[in-house]
């Protein structure tokens, strides 16, 4: 079966190389070597691979924040790598959330079908509190039916304001920047996650679009216009227009969740010399579960694009 290859690189019609060979130098002779050739740097092509199956694991994806709303947890299962269908849902589980004193039950939105578990819509978390999620499965996965996960709800500085600027000279079509103005607390190492909305539509709707940052260069200082989000004007689905309302949600997250997002965003890519050997993403679910149950606090800012 013919395969389509995509190649990139430079095509050199001719190349002149001087070789100073040690032996030749001794004989006071220099070789002039002319190489006429075509060099293509690299090509990619889709290939068929046969991969083994591994045992099935529970996948947890959920979290709570200090904003009033529902706390939602999605339960799915792992599948073969070339499964090519939405992840199989885990239904009829018993999911409870505890802050150490009170237990809250998360009910499946469409019992027996959706695999989505929610609290009532008046739920909110408290900064500094440790939250524990308990999952009890109706049917065990890999002989495990009980899973737990804990996460502390981290604080976040108040956003004084945000600013949207356009750098026309960056990249082929320019880059939009969303900048943050806030006082960074200096007493601890903080990790941040940034979501943004364009006219009330969540633009960072997938984990690979989220921006994350630690406070390595800003710890304890006043953040005066640090870029939190870069938006490529090349992509029509995410570009901004004058008059658009941009809303930024800055969230304080744990180091574990920061590492998790970083690993998820990097996963799948392997470039020799630039990336190390691939490894499984480290989450915070017990008993071999995959994924993360997170807790974070939010701080909001909004501006109009000029």
């Amino acid at each position: 079966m013919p395969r389509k290859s995509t190649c990139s690189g430079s095509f050199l019609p001719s190349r002149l190389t001087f070789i100073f060979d040690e032996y030749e130098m001794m004989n006071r002779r220099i070789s002039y070597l002319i190489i006429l050739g075509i060099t293509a740097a690299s090509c990619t092509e889709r290939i068929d691979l046969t991969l083994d199956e591994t045992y099935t694991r529970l996948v947890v994806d959920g979290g709570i924040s200090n904003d009033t709303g529902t706390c939602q947890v999605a339960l799915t299962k792992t599948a073969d790598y070339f499964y090519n269908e939405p992840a199989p849902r885990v239904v009829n589980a018993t999911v409870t959330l505890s802050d150490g004193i009170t237990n809250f039950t998360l009910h499946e939105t469409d019992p027996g079908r959706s695999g989505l578990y929610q609290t009532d819509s008046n739920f909110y978390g408290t900064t500094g509190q440790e939250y524990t999620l308990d999952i009890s499965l109706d049917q065990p996965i890999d002989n495990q039916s009980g899973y737990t996960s804990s996460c502390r709800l981290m604080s976040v500085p108040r956003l004084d304001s945000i600013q949207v600027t356009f750098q026309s000279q960056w990249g082929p079509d320019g880059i939009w920047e969303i900048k943050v103005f806030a006082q960074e607390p200096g007493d601890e190492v903080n990790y941040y996650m940034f979501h943004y909305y364009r006219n009330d539509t969540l633009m960072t709707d997938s984990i690979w679009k989220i921006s994350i940052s630690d406070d390595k260069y800003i710890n304890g200082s006043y953040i005066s216009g640090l870029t939190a989000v870069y938006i490529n004007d090349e992509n029509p689905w995410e570009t901004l227009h004058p008059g658009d309302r941009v809303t930024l949600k800055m969230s304080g997250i744990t180091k574990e969740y920061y590492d998790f997002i970083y690993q998820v965003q990097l996963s799948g890519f392997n470039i020799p010399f630039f990336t190390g050997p691939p490894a499984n993403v480290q989450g915070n679910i017990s008993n071999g579960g995959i994924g993360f149950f997170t807790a974070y606090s939010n701080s909001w800012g909004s501006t109009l694009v000029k």
Partner: protein
Amino acid sequence: MIDFKDFAELLLNEKLEGEIREGKGWSYGAEFLVRITEKKFGGWISYTLSKSMRKIPEINNGNPYPAPYDKPHNIAIVGNYQFHPRWSVSADWVYATGNPVTFPTGRAEIGGKVIPIYSDRNAYRYQDYHRLDLSVTFYSKQKEGQKFNWDINVSVYNVYNRHNTWSINFVQDNENPNITYAEKIYLFGIVPSVTFNFHF
């Protein structure tokens, strides 16, 4: 023996030693070589059988795994034939077992992204590497007292245009995010070249 820990950060990392874990490594093997040096014909056939393993407590749950450069079979066939005083041809063919690599054996969906669930460290291998190169050389006439000579060489690298693997990435399709596929990167297909050598 050292190797990179899981999720090693290599790019722009000033504290690279923190990404490394220590353990044991061992190799063994056998080599076999036949060489011919006749007046008009020269060449050799070599075969290497080897095994290189590592065992590092914090990697692969402490279980032994093949070293990244482990190539059990390695063959080289090289020949050079001077069929005319001013003409020679040469050919070489190399073969090596594909390098060990870690591939996904499952996947999980998190926040709209499909993430791979990996096999044990280096549990798979790339396709075997092999390649044939051919070349023809034409030499200038040697005259008594002449201060220079030259030769022209026409060669073809990777004659049968094998797409030898450099790396394999696992990609989520942009249009249908449920679909994941493997994508191979290879560096050189067939490369013809002409070389002119001038000695003085």
